């Protein structure tokens, strides 16, 4: 058997793939957080709960409506995105004129309510969600078996991340958004309905989280705590990457996932903490984060 650094190659590549998958979720979630933070100046603590709602929406669409995985991949983000818009229009908009910390506290409270409600009705043991038939099975690459669904998750995440990047950086809509982030009153003076842009941005960020949730549903069991497990690590990812750059959020997310996967091979006990250790090193050397802008 092929050995790399004294580790069997299939094990190494297997963990690397798992790392990439985790990284894909880190990237999508931190991307959403960064986009929302850029426009609303709010750290969305409910992001993990909305990610979880995305997975539950897919599960419910199948269980109650018989709607399969691929339609759910579109419908669930639309539903949850609409829910996000509702939250923004009724509650979150009240935070814009207050200290940033209140936005954090409000969204933290929302996360508790959402997760608590789901735990009440669905328990915390988790519900199964089948991998769609076309994506079942694995293919032999010679050096390892590649489960097709996992490859699909990484590919889908990459496409969505770079589509988001392209929309924000390369289209007129993205230019308006970035301008509104820099100087909202001026953009408003040019006739752009800035509050609506803010609402749609929040909806978009939430939809991204829900999309990640649907992707996650067949891998992790659909349970009310699934967002919780991710979101703390995602905050560390955001601190490491800095929230200034879209591309930075994507790269940091994938990179840290890979680092985590590799740590699992060489020192399994440390794999849960390695992201935080990286955060400590980054804070000591470049407190603004790898891609952070100067204040």
């Amino acid at each position, binding site marked *: 058997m092929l050995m790399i650094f004294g580790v069997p190659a299939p094990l190494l590549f297997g963990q690397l793939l798992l790392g990439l998958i985790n990284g894909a979720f880190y990237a999508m979630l931190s991307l959403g957080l960064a986009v929302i933070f850029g426009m609303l100046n709010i750290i969305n603590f409910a992001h993990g709960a909305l990610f979880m709602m995305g997975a539950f929406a897919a599960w419910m669409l199948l269980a109650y409506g018989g709607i399969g995985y691929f339609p759910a991949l579109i419908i669930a983000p639309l539903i949850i995105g609409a829910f996000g818009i509702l939250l923004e229009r009724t509650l979150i908009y009240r935070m814009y004129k207050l200290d940033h910390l209140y936005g954090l506290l409000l969204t933290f409270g929302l996360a508790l309510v959402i*997760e608590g409600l789901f735990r009440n009705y669905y328990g915390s043991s988790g519900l199964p969600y089948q991998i769609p038939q076309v994506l079942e099975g694995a293919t032999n690459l010679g050096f390892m078996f590649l489960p097709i669904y996992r490859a699909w998750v990484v590919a889908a995440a990459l496409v969505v991340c770079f589509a988001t990047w392209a929309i924000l950086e390369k289209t007129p809509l993205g230019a308006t958004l970035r301008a509104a982030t820099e100087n909202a009153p001026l953009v408003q003076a040019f006739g752009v309905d800035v509050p609506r842009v803010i609402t749609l941005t929040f909806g978009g960020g939430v939809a991204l989280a829900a999309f990640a949730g649907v992707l996650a549903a067949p891998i992790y069991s659909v349970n009310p705590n699934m967002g919780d497990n991710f979101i703390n690590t995602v905050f560390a990812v955001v601190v490491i990457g800095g929230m200034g750059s879209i591309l930075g959020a994507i790269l940091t997310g994938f990179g840290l996932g890979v680092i985590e996967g590799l740590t699992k091979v060489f020192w399994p006990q440390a794999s*849960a903490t390695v992201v935080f250790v990286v955060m400590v090193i980054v804070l000591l050397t470049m407190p603004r984060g790898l891609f952070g802008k100067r204040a």
Partner: protein
Amino acid sequence: MFGFSSAQWKVFLLLVALIIVSPYVLYPIFLMRVLCMALFACAFNLMVGYVGLLSFGHAAFFGMGGYVAAWTIKFWHVDAVVAIILGGLTGAVLGLCLGYLAIRRSGIYFAMITLALAQMVYFFCLEVPFTGGEDGIQQVPRGHLFGVINLNDDMAMYWVVAVVFIGGFLLIHRIIHSPFGQVLKAIRENEPRATSLGYRTDDYKLIAFILSSMLSGLAGGTKAIVFGIATLTDVHYSTSGEVVLTTLLGGLGTVFGPLVGATVVTAMENYLAQFGSWVTVTQGAIFVICVLAFRRGIVGEIGAALKLGL
């Protein structure tokens, strides 16, 4: 000598009277839980209310203080007072390490960094053998205070907790009203200006953070001894969220708010415990209502209505 205003003196004396009378009326175990949470919330309030930095990782100090107190009293058979002090010292040392990193950023970054660092402490506690992992440290004996007073008597234990709480409460008040505390408030109001006046603001913030984490460790250690158990729950980030809720509900930056918040939150948990996850839902709803409707908290609103600083 503690910098109380006359209204605060009256409320403080009332508070002491209540602490003395209440164990004869209410269940002492419940009261001890309230006092431990209240001290924890007071310590947290020192950071958020007077330095303006919201920490989302205070469970790390509370929980580690509990672990060390429980471990030393169970395996080294130290006196309860020594164990509680060791819990406080643990909090202080951990606060130095985490604070040194966290104060490099402010605002929401500070909240995220403290959350992430505390999560690291949580994973550490999950892995290392000394915490007992998922089981925690169980059946911790209370022992005898100074080798004489049997603490297995709930009333004796209650007086120890009451003294720890009042001591911690007065210490915090003394800190806030010292010249050091004035500098902290100056930093909260306008950090660049405090810097321009020649204060090393980072040093002040770090010292405040260490004091706050020390008192959190003290509270955690006391709680572990009262209940004879130290578990992962106390280092989990939901505990950090709970102390934020307690302080917000009572009133950020008020003197008596954390105690009122702790009473309400603990009572609510007691009565809602049978309804499972409704506790979480209610806590979340209180967060939302507080932030939307009364950001000054219970004591803050009462103080504003009476035009008194409570």
